[in-house]
């Protein structure tokens, strides 16, 4: 029987190797999956990891998907670092998108070009408010943030479906459940003509740097880290646990809301019943795969974007449903958790 033996100190080497090992495991399982489905694993893995990167357009699509994933994952990384188990980034993203969409729909024909800034602000406020509910209930009523944030995700999703089927439905939309398309002034400007990339990606890089500074250099970031690693030490040092709950959840809500706003005022251009293909949930995996570190999250968001695009491509190239993305996402997180064991434990055979 193999036995787990605790290491005297966590292995820093394994900390970096574990995500690589997890990717390797996912590729192995993916190969088995393709074989089981009667597809060539070489062709299958190619669709996921090579084809999206063969063209400039492919790269821009990867960038487009990385923005929401990265923003949500940065917020979640802050939460998980401070031991706040927010899993409702999906809901915060959706409500951010709703709020941004609402602001965008208000734009008149004579709105100035900078109107999109208000749209983005609306998204931030929306996400902030939604995460604020979780923070309030956790702080004031001790309600479990996992369950509350997840329940709010369902509520947010239903709210969106209600709005696009009801009050916000485009009257000239042939009865489709879509809102009016936004006016040009409400849209985030494109970065290059010919691609769908917007200035959102630049904004994401700025946010990345800010979060990095916040976590590594600010006092508040330090307090969050202590509260996460050693709650008792944080208490003795007089760091407020309430501050950790509010700060991490509100930051995450703001970032997820911004991501939602960038999505609806970017590639989507209107509200639809489903504005997120599960970005908020995938971002949980991104945060873990990225070691809850801003830099790591970039790498992880890149991998996750490939998996998303690979799933879309596998429909046309392999005749496999796009739902295969979800299978890969789940496998990746399970593989990562397995690999993570070796950070804290050594395996002894005897």
């Amino acid at each position: 029987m193999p036995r787990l033996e605790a290491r005297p100190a966590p292995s820093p080497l394994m900390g970096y190797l574990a995500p690589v090992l997890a990717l390797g495991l996912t590729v192995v399982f993916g190969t088995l999956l393709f074989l089981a489905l009667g597809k060539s694993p070489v062709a299958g893995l190619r669709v996921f990891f090579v084809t999206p990167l063969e063209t400039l357009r492919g790269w821009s699509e990867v960038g487009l998907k990385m923005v929401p994933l990265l923003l949500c994952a940065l917020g979640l990384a802050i939460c998980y670092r401070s031991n706040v188990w927010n899993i409702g980034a999906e809901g915060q993203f959706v409500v951010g998108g709703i709020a941004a969409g609402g602001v965008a729909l208000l734009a008149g024909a004579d709105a100035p070009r900078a109107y999109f800034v208000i749209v983005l602000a609306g998204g931030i406020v929306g996400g902030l408010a939604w995460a604020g509910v979780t923070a309030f209930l956790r702080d004031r009523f001790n309600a479990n943030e996992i369950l509350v944030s997840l329940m709010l995700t369902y509520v947010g999703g239903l709210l969106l479906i209600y709005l696009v089927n009801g009050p916000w439905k485009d009257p000239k939309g042939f009865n489709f459940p879509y809102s009016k398309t936004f006016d040009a002034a409400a849209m985030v400007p494109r970065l290059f003509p010919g691609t769908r990339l917007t200035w959102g990606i630049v904004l994401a890089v700025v946010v990345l740097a800010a979060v990095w500074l916040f976590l590594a250099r600010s006092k508040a970031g330090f307090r969050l880290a202590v509260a996460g690693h050693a709650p008792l030490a944080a208490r003795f040092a007089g760091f407020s646990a309430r501050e950790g709950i509010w700060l991490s959840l509100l930051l995450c809500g703001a970032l997820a809301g911004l991501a939602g706003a960038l999505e609806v005022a970017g590639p989507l251009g209107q509200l639809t019943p489903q504005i997120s293909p599960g970005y908020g949930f995938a971002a949980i995996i991104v945060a873990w795969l990225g070691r809850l570190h801003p830099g790591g999250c970039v790498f992880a968001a890149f991998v996750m974007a490939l998996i998303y695009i690979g799933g879309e491509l596998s429909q046309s190239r392999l005749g496999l449903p796009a739902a295969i993305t979800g299978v890969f996402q789940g496998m990746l997180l399970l593989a990562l958790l397995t690999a993570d064991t070796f950070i804290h434990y050594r395996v002894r055979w005897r």
Partner: protein
Amino acid sequence: MEQLAALIAATLSAGTPLLLAGIGLLVNERSGVLNLGAEGMMLIAAAAGFAVGFHTGNPVAGLAAGALAGVLFSLIFSALAIGLATNQYATGLALTLFGAGLSAFAGLAYVGKSVPFKSTFEVPGLSALPFLGTAFFKLHPMVYLALALTGLVAWVLARTRAGLVIRAVGESPESAHAIGYPVRLIRVGAVAFGGACCGLAGAYLSLVYTPLWVEGMVAGRGWIALALTTFATWRPWRIALGAYLFGSVTMIQFALQAEGVEIASQLLSMLPYIATIVVLALISRNPAFIRLNMPASLGKPFHP
């Protein structure tokens, strides 16, 4: 009157998947393991149960397949969270994400198909009673089975040696280990029981309650069942109370729609989720009360 009876019957049917999953998760948590993978296990079991029911034409085979799928899925959790001592929150979450992805993928072939199973059975003699017959004796056997299971779990946990051992493992795994109980094996068993119950609940949804396979059809019931264990302060009969309470919340939305109340269906569908939040907030208000009732080692990994 007849309408009220039908409403009671519908409430019992709607509460049954929550009760099944909740009672399984209760045993799970009493042994000290928090499995956030409930939603994923229910989804994969709903898909597997529907597939087997569809091909065999036998609802019992479908339900059994669902339970089996739940057990197999719970073993993934056990291997990681108990075997490798990974973080239970993250592992459960991974199981839910994986279950959602895999069920959506594997279930595609069954979208739009239906199964011809009866959803109600009449208890001979009793079903003819006025009011009571419609309310309580024209239901699916799973409704009664879920209640019987609740009674069984309540009895085992409170009155038998096996129950005492499970509780000991949940309260103080170190002590249980020192006395010589195989803590991790007992936890694997408890988690497998949770998986079987969640599996039954999922298969009940796709074979009896809906009865269809739709992607994501469990719609958060796994999470609500997890909330139920807190609501019930880890006591079996209170799970039943909570499950039927949430069943009635689901029913309010249909009753209101039947009455022709002008509220959009999406807003009414929010009710169970909002109710969960409200109930959680009310019950958790006093941290000391929760800590007193919660299995002491809940969520903490144990490795000897």
